[in-house]
């Protein structure tokens, strides 16, 4: 018996070596942390629409497969979702189902009828998607750098990126896309290592699914074609055309399967998804000036990245990116007619770096220079963090490589990294639960308050609860908004007693309200319109600030 136990322990300790257990512990700790705090976050304006989207497609699919009971439950749930500012689901059902459909199904399966409960379920699901994405991010780094410590440091950089950390508890589009794009990149790397059918199918599956969330997912097949083209002109045979063809066939197959919008109208569905009518039609406040979302200055994206990314990430990124760019430029300058190597990379590892470099340059220049609608800070381009952090990790890798035999420098670098990471964690703590509105410590107060901050109204629920808490008694409290925000979305999330006390009225009638909420986001240039002028009887009683950033304002009517 003792012998068996000893053997078992030995086997287990062989299986889970020290490094592995640390990584395992990191993931477990991160998951527990997420599980403990996911209820702290506010709610997003589009969540109601996406819940409706989930039930719309669940009803459709249940009908398709003849699941009458499920169809009925789903249809009932869908009919209950109403609101005068809610987009018509029959017209705007273009979104993919990879998140909305399982969320809707789980809501029925778990018999969740309280709004707060089912929205919280959606939030924990978003976190789970991101958690899986972060595991794959670690696998990407391990695949590329073959070093557990470097990969772990890279993983840390991802999960302590404040805006990603915050959004991973509520952002049901950009975070889901980011997670799926990470998984697609992982399988892209696997295809580079071993272009087997299994890897091609998995790459096609995840790139197809990610394309159903954001159009940017189409870049995976495009880049595979481009890589084949580079190989073709260089007479290299590590990527043949049949492989590209297989990928394209599988890609469109999975795109079709996971995007029921294409089931009835395949071609018009794809073309229609390119139409950006769903983009924010209001104005975007950028440094105090109001712009149309597709007429923003070219530096909009770059500026946002600089002010909302921690300095540690930026420093490492600039080092990693510039070092790699110099290498690629060097390779480019030295291209010869005949060479035994590939022209822009030597080994597979460099090819992976080139793929990430290509992604970053393509998306950054495209999003900055092609008048693509950007709004709500730069959340639509948050997937660029994958490439930013990849190059930051590459920088760490370069340092480790350079000081390979200098133990003291290596330890000092890790210590330096840990200290700076602790500083970021401290700032994440300060911002809680508004990490989604993070600015780095170099950003001035003037800049922070001349940008759209709480664009999704995450703070609205806190405002309602605060007002109820401060107004003692059982009388009715009339509240309104003085910004672009459908506050009535939040009414469902209050408990029964709170609901009875709160009456929400529209912005036009705000003069009748007792309290007025503003998330300081406007669809028009408020300097020229009276729409957002506060009636003279109202006095600002609170400016909720985090790190000198105004998140929301409360006005109260004077008696």
């Amino acid at each position, binding site marked *: 018996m003792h012998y068996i136990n000893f053997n078992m322990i030995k086997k287990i300790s062989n299986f889970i070596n020290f490094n592995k257990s640390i990584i395992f512990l990191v993931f477990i700790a991160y998951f527990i942390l997420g599980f403990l705090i996911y209820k702290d976050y506010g709610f997003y304006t589009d969540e109601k629409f996406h819940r409706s989207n989930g039930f719309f497609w669940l009803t459709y699919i249940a009908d398709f497969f003849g699941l009458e009971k499920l169809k009925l439950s789903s249809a009932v749930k869908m009919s209950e979702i109403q609101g005068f500012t809610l987009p018509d689901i029959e017209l705007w059902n273009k979104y993919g189902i990879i998140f909305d459909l399982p969320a809707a199904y789980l809501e029925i399966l778990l018999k969740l009828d309280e709004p707060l409960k089912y929205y919280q379920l959606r939030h924990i699901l978003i976190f789970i998607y991101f958690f899986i994405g972060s595991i794959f991010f670690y696998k990407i780094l391990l695949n590329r750098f073959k070093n557990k410590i470097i990969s772990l440091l890279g993983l840390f950089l991802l999960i302590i990126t404040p805006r990603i950390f915050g959004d991973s508890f509520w952002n049901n589009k950009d975070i889901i896309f980011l997670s799926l794009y990470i998984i697609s990149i992982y399988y892209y790397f696997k295809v580079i290592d071993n272009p087997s059918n299994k890897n091609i199918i998995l790459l096609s599956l995840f790139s197809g699914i990610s394309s159903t969330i954001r159009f940017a997912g189409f870049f995976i097949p495009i880049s595979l074609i481009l890589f084949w083209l580079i190989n073709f002109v260089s007479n290299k045979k590590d990527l043949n055309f049949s492989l590209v063809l297989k990928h394209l066939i599988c890609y469109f197959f999975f795109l079709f399967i996971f995007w029921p919008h294409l089931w009835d109208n395949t071609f018009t569905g794809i073309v229609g998804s390119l139409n950006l009518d769903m983009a924010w039609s209001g104005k975007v406040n950028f440094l105090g000036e109001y712009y*149309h979302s597709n007429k923003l200055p070219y530096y909009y994206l770059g500026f946002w990245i600089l002010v909302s990314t921690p300095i540690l990430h930026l420093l490492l990124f600039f080092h990693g990116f510039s070092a790699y760019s110099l290498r690629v430029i060097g390779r480019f300058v030295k291209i010869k007619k005949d060479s035994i190597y590939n022209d822009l990379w030597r080994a597979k590892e460099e090819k992976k770096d080139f793929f990430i470099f290509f992604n970053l340059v393509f998306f950054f*220049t495209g999003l900055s*220079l092609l008048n693509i609608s950007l709004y709500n800070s730069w959340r639509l381009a948050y997937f660029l963090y994958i490439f930013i952090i990849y190059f930051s990790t590459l920088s760490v890798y370069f340092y480790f490589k350079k000081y390979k035999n200098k133990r003291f420098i290596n330890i000092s670098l890790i210590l330096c990294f840990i200290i700076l990471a602790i500083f970021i964690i401290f700032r994440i703590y300060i911002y809680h639960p508004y990490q989604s509105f993070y600015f780095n410590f170099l950003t001035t107060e003037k800049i922070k308050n001349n940008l759209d901050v709480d664009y999704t109204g995450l703070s609205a629920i806190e405002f309602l609860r605060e007002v109820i808490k401060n107004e003692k008694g059982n009388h009715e409290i009339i509240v309104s908004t003085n910004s672009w925000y459908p506050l009535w979305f939040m009414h469902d999330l209050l408990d029964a007693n709170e609901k009875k006390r709160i009456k929400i009225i529209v912005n036009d009638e705000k003069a009748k309200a007792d309290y007025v909420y503003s998330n300081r986001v406007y669809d028009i240039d408020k300097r*020229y319109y009276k729409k957002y002028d506060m009636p003279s009887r109202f006095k600002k009683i609170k400016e909720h600030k985090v790190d000198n950033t105004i998140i929301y304002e409360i006005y109260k009517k004077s008696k």
Partner: protein
Amino acid sequence: MKLFFYKTIFVAFVFFITFKITVGSTVKYVENKIYSLSSKENLEYIKKKIKDEMKVAVSKEEYIKKDDAILINQFIKKIQNDLNNQN
């Protein structure tokens, strides 16, 4: 073939960036100016300015100086005369 391919891509990319940063940004600037001039906000702004100016005019005891008033009056009369003579 290979060198041509790379050079074409490189030149196209550099051309695109240079064009966008130089000509493109100027076009964008002009576009934004036209857009903002014809925007509802600007029209509202002009309307507000005119109203403010009218309010100022109403509140002032003498909005147009006597010399200017005589000159404008003479000018209007001249125009009226010429218009009548044409008929």
